[in-house]
C-alpha cells in the first residue's frame, strides 16, 4: 500500500494536460518503476499522482511523414528492443534499453519515464544523445520539440513546463541522424543484470563509401557528469579521420577533455575516467566493425 494522496488517471493526452493544469503539484507516473519506488522510500510520500499509464496512444514505434523514427513515450523497453523499425535503423537503442534492470523492469519501464526523470545513468539516454534525438512535449499550447541535449537541464531536472500542462509524448530520431549509421553501447555495471550503469557509453559512426574513413562519429556518456553528455573533443578526432588503431586510441584519450565524472561511493572519479577511455575505444571499434569498416 502506497502512501499516496490521490490518483488521477488520464484517459487521453488532452485529459492528462488538463489534469496537470488542475493539479500542478501532482507527479506524473508512467510505468512507475521509479516514482513508486521513491514514494515507498518516503521521498514522494503523500503526493498526488497523475497516471498516464493507460494512454495506449503513446505506445509504439513508427516512421512519421518526415521519415523520423517516432517512439511513443510510453513504449516499454522490451517493446523497443523487439520492434522491427528499431532493429533495422537503430538497433543499438534496442540493445541499450535491453540492459535496463531485468526483464520485468523492461516490461514496465518506458522510454519517456527513463528520460523524464533526468538521471544521468539512464541506459537510453547516452544513445539518444549520441543519435541527437528530439523530444516531443505536448501541453496546452500544443506540441513543442527540442533537441535532447536541451531537454536535460541538470541532474533530475528536465525542461517540461508544468505551467503549460506539458508531458512528454514522443522521442524522435531524424533521418539525417540514423541513415547509414551504426552504433554500439557498453553499459559498465557491477553485475550483468539488475543494475544501474556505473558508466554508459554509446558511439555511432557513418563511414565513407570505401569504408576506410569515418565521415561522422558521435559519442555520448551517461554518468560521466550530472546529465548525459556528448564528447566533442573525441568526435573531432574521429570525424573525417582514416580508420586506424592509433586513431581509436587518440579518440579514447580525447574523451577526458570532455567528461567530468564525480567521486561517489558508487565509483571513484579516477576509476570512471579510466574505464571511460577504454569504453570509448571499444565502442568505436565495434561501431566501425558493424559499419563494415576496414581497420588498418
Amino acid at each position: 500500500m502506497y502512501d499516496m494522496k490521490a490518483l488521477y488517471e488520464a484517459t487521453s493526452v488532452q485529459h492528462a494536460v488538463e489534469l496537470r493544469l488542475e493539479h500542478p503539484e501532482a507527479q506524473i507516473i508512467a510505468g512507475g518503476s521509479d516514482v513508486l519506488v521513491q514514494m515507498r522510500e518516503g521521498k514522494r510520500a503523500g503526493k498526488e499522482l497523475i497516471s498516464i499509464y493507460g494512454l495506449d496512444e503513446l505506445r509504439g514505434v513508427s516512421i512519421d511523414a518526415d521519415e523520423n523514427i517516432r517512439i511513443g513515450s510510453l513504449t516499454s523497453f522490451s517493446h523497443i528492443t523487439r520492434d522491427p523499425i528499431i532493429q533495422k535503423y537503430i538497433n543499438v537503442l534496442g540493445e541499450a534499453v535491453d540492459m535496463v534492470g531485468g526483464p520485468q523492469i523492461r516490461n514496465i519501464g518506458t522510454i519517456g519515464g527513463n528520460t523524464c526523470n533526468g538521471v544521468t545513468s539512464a541506459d537510453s539516454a547516452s544513445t539518444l544523445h549520441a543519435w541527437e534525438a528530439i523530444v516531443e512535449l505536448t501541453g496546452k499550447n500544443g506540441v513543442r520539440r527540442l533537441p535532447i541535449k536541451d531537454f536535460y537541464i541538470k541532474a533530475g531536472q528536465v525542461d517540461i513546463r508544468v505551467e503549460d500542462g506539458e508531458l512528454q509524448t514522443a522521442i524522435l530520431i531524424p533521418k539525417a541522424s540514423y541513415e547509414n549509421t551504426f552504433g554500439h553501447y557498453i553499459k559498465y555495471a557491477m553485475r550483468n543484470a539488475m543494475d544501474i550503469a556505473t558508466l554508459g557509453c554509446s558511439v555511432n559512426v557513418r563511414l565513407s563509401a570505401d569504408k576506410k574513413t569515418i565521415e561522422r562519429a558521435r559519442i555520448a556518456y551517461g554518468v560521466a557528469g550530472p546529465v548525459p553528455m556528448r564528447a566533442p573533443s573525441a568526435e573531432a578526432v574521429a570525424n573525417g579521420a582514416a580508420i586506424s588503431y592509433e586513431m581509436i586510441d587518440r579518440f579514447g584519450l580525447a574523451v577526458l577533455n570532455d567528461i567530468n565524472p564525480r567521486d561517489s561511493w558508487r565509483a571513484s572519479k579516477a576509476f570512471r575516467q579510466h574505464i571511460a577511455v577504454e569504453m570509448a575505444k571499444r565502442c568505436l571499434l565495434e561501431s566501425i566493425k558493424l559499419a563494415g569498416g576496414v581497420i588498418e
Partner: protein
Amino acid sequence: MSIVGKSEIRVDAFDKATGRTKYYEDRMPAGALYVRIKHAEIAHGFVKSVDTSEAEQIKGVVKVLTCFDVPEIDFPTAGHPWSMDPGHQDVADRRLLNRHVRYWGDDVAVVIAEDEVAAMQGVRALKVEYETLPFVLDPQKAMEDGAPQLHDNYPNNILKHTSIRNGNYAEAIKEPGLIKVEGWYNTPTVQHCHIENHGCFAYEENGRITVVSSTQIPHIIRRVVGQALGRPWADIEIVKPYIGGGFGNKQDALYEPLCAWCSTQVGGRLVRIDCSREETFVSNRVRHAIRFHIISWIRPDGSMAARKVDLYSNQGAYASHGHSIVAKAMGSFPQLYPCPNIECDAYTVYTNIPAAGAMRGYGMPQASFANDSNIEECAHAVHMDPVEYRNKYIMPQGFEDGFSKNVNYYDSHRECLEKGKELIGYDQKIKEFANDSGPIRRGIGCASFWYNTAVWPIALETSSNRMLLNLDGTVTMQCGETEIGQGADTAFAQMAAEAIGLKSYKDVRVISCQDTDVTPTGLGAYASRQTYVAGFSIRQTAEILRKKIFEYASKMTRQTVENMDIVDGNVVRKIDGKVLASLKEIAMTAQYNPQDSEHITAESTFTIKNNAYSFGCTFAEVEVDIPMCKVTVKNIVNVHDCGSLINPALAEAQVHGGMSMAIGYGMSEQLLFDQKTGKPLNNNLLDYKLSTVMDHPDLEAAFIENPEPTSAFGTKALGEPPACSGAPAIRNAIYNATGVALHTLPMNPHNLFAAFTEAGLIQDSWQEGK
C-alpha cells in the same frame, strides 16, 4: 541401505511448485495491527526525547511506544543453546528499544497502527532528539584508547579476546633460512539476503503469548522472548512455518521479542512486524567483517616452521553470536594446514555498525579467504605448484584435533583435490594459460576448506524426535530440527523410512511446522548439523517404535520379538522373510482392539557427544579483462566430502547455493557505510550486488563419499562448507592469471582498479591524455 542415498523429490516440492506453501505472512489472520519501527538516524548517541504528539494524531495510529517505555531488561539474541554455566551464557546487551543508540538503524520507537500507511506516516512524524556521540566503524580503531565506547563493561570495545599457543613461535622463527610470507587480508560486511525478509506476528491467548515467526530456531526463540519480556519461558509459544531462507540471519532472535511485547501493550491484540528489505540489511544481522594478519615462516621446501595469525572481528553494535564466529575461524588455522609452532589471537570488537551474527559458514568464509590466500603466496614463494603445495602440507589422514577430538579418518583432502583437478582440467589449463600476456588473461586457482559439523563440545548438542504409527501403516514424525529450505524434511523422511523399515520415504509424514507447545525440543537449523544430529534421534526413536510394533505384533502372531524385522512396511519373520502382518494391520488392531488397545508411538531425545570434520575444495577458472578491471568466472567446481549422501540431488543443489554465495562474496557483495555519518549506503537489492543468474557460470558440485564413522547415517556437514572456499579459489585464479595478489574482498572493479594500478598493469594513460 535402499531409501537413503537416493535422489528423491523433496517432500515439500509439490506445495512449493504450486505456490500454496504457507509462510508466516500467508498464515496471518486478518486484522493484524501493523508495527513499524523508528530506526535511529545517528550512528552513536543517546535518545534525549521522542515527541510522539504528531504521530498520535494520525488517523489509524493506535499506540506509540518508545525506548523510555520498554522493560529495563537486557537480553541476549544469539541462537545458541542455553548454557547452565553463567560464564558461558550469551552476552545480554540490548533492550527491546534502545535509548543508547549504537548504530545507524538502531530501534528507538515503534508506531502501532491499523493500517500500513498510517504506521509509516506515524514513524515519519516522530521527532527524536538525540545527544550525539563520536562513533567508530573499524574494529582496530575501536580498540584504541580513547575510542568511543559502546558498552560499559567492555573496555576498548573488546567483547572478547582468545588465543592459541601451540609450540614455541618465538623460538621457531629463529631457524636459519626461513622465508617470511606475510599479509593482511580483509573481508567485507555482507548480508544473508534470503528472499523472504524476516517477519512475525504475535497475540495473547489464555494469558500466554504466541509468536509465529520466520525463524530457524523456534525453541531458542521461546527462551529469548521469555528472557526479554521477563516472563516464564513456558508462557511463550513459538510457531515456525515454512520460511523463505535463513542462512543464519534467522538463527537469532530478531523481532520476535519486540513483536510479543507490542502485543502485550495493546491488550494482547494481534500485531505484525514485517521487515522491509532495507531493514533486513541493517537491523537484522550481517556477516562479521574480519581482518587477518598472517605471518608464515616456511622452509625452502615449503614446510611450515611457524605461523602467527591475528584476527580482528567487527562485531558491530551488539553481541549476538559474538566471539564464537572468530573463534571458529581461528580454530581452523592450526588444523587445516597444521603447523607445530603457531600463535593466534582473535579479538571480537564492538563498533557502530549493524550487529553481526551467524551466517552460512560461521567465520569460515573469512578464514578460508585469508588462509588459502596466504597458502597460495607460500606456494609461490617456494615456486611450487599451489595444488601440489596443498597436497603436501594440508591436514594428513589420521590427524586428531585435541579439543574437538575430531579425527580425519580418510585422506579426504587429497581425494577432493585430485577430483577437482581432474574435473576442471587443471594440468592442461595451467599450461594453456601460462602464456597469456595481453590485456585479457586466464588463470586457475584452488582453495580448500575445513568445517566442523555441529557445535559439540563447545555447546550442548541434542535432538528430539517423535514418531506415531498411523492407522494406514505410515508414520508421522516431528523433529525439533527445522526445514529452512535446505531440504531437511526430505532427508529426515528418508532416514526415518530407512530406520523403521518402511517402503518409501513418502510413508513418513514429516510435520514441517514446529510449534514449541507440541514439537519435541530441538535446537533448530544451524552449524550444518540438521542431518547429523537428527539422524541420531531418528535412529533411536525408530528403534523404540520398532520395538513397540514388534511387541504388539508378537501378541498378534505369537512369534518372538527377536525373530522380527520390518521390511517394506511389513513385519516379517527374520529367518525366512515371511510377512507376518503389515504395519497397517498392526496399527488397526492395536488401535481398535477392545481388550488391549494401544496407540503406538515413540519419542526420544539423543545427546550427541561427537562432531565430525567435513572437507573439500573449490577450483575456479577466470578470465581477467585488465583494462576493464573485470573478472569473469568461467568455470567453478566444488568437491566436498560430507560423508554419505542421504539425497544426492538435494546435496548437489545445496552445494550450488553455497557456491553462488561464495561467488557473490568473492566478486561483488559488500554492505557499505558512509564514513562521515555511519549511515548504510546500499541496503537494498539494487545497490547491494547479490549475484544474478547472469553473473555465474554453470556450477559443478562433486562429492567424495567417505562415510563418517561417528554419524548415525554416515553424514557430516553439507550446507555451509560450500560457501567457504569459493572466494579464495577465485582470488588465487586471479593471482595466477595476473600475478596480482589481492588482499581485500570483494574483488570488484573498484578493488581490481586499485590493485592493477598499483601493480603497474594499468597505465594511467588518461593522465597523459590531458
